[in-house]
């Protein structure tokens, strides 16, 4: 089944991911792509606590993720790939043609960002990054949970 969801979420692993998406997709593994978390044992330890024991968590840097994407896409299990920011997802979309859909699940308030949706706050540069990902033929939508409407990128950037 491979990777069923490529998601950008600045909270990384939390309830919406594990329960909201993980349960209906029947996800067996989560790939967390973040260079800083990849280098931090205590952060990995924390994120592992957020998932039930039957879900494997794989931590990868951007380079490792680009190298291992074909392997994860060939998995028989269902997986979710998470990044905490748009630049990381953009790097994956640039470096691999396997990223066909991107789900913007949550990018929250920070200085300089403005509200685009209730769960998506972006700077103008971040909005441009999303449009650039979409321009590569990637289907970019915002959707926090599966039962919500998938909002096309043109409606919030």
């Amino acid at each position, binding site marked *: 089944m491979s990777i069923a969801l490529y998601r950008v979420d600045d909270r990384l692993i*939390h309830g919406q991911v594990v*329960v909201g998406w993980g349960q209906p997709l029947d996800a067996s593994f989560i790939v967390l792509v973040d260079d800083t978390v990849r280098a931090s044992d*205590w952060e990995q330890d924390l994120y592992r606590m957020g998932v039930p024991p039957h879900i494997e968590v794989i931590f990868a840097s951007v380079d490792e993720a680009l190298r291992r994407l074909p392997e994860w896409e060939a998995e028989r299990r269902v997986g979710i790939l998470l990044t905490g920011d748009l630049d990381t997802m953009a790097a994956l979309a640039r470096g691999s043609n396997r990223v066909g859909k991107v789900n913007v699940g949550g990018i929250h308030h920070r200085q300089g960002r403005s509200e685009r949706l*209730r769960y998506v706050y972006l700077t103008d540069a971040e909005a441009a990054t999303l449009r650039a990902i979409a321009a590569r033929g990637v289907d970019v939508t915002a959707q926090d949970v599966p039962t919500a409407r998938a909002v096309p990128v043109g409606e919030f950037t």
Partner: protein
Amino acid sequence: MAPLTPRPRLGTSLLRLFTVQGSWNYEYMLGLGIGVAEEPLLRDLPGGPGGAAYHAALGRGTHFFNAHPYLAGLAVGAAARAEHDGASPEQIERLRTALAGPLGSLGDRLVWAGWLPFAAGLAIAGIALGLGWTAVAGFLVVYNAGHLALRWWALRAGWAHGTRVPTALHHPGLRRAMAFTAPAMALALGLALPLGASYLAAPFAAGGRIALAGGTALGLVLLWWRPMNLTGLRLGLTLIAAALVAGWVWR
């Protein structure tokens, strides 16, 4: 390491944590409430209340944050302790970010999907067995004892460990609680569902019971078939609407 803040300050912080859900909004989520709860623990920073360290720490405390409200005290205590220990602003931001998701996920599994349905299941079974208000009182005592203990433990553990707070989450008591709540919840609900259904269906004639069983079976099939589109709430509201229409047509 800074001396422990007198316990009354932790008590004030705990009391403020009870209001944390009231601060929720889409922009900061629990951030503002977390800052308010952290404030009593920051008053002893160099310069005292009004000092630069206090203001900077309080500003950081109110940044965007979300977690399970019962475990949010862990982040409050840990961030305040890290401020006293002189951790850098970047370290504290990283700690808050890393704690948010896991505390939310752990709390959801431990409380919303464990302790709460466990206590509610026991109460429903008790009511169905004729215990009446005793079962309701038992629910309030059992549920609140668990969640108050969890809140107090979380705040103290965060304050005791600071940036080393991941260690606190390996506490054997927490692990035992995680291991206990899921099967206990399944057992309690397994007991409550047939007893509750039998109790609620008792006033109906055979036809009504068959319709109730049919509606339940249909709901289970639909939830299994369309998990991405259907929720229990949507299904329940649809069935209530259908029942109202049917009752109006056949009255």
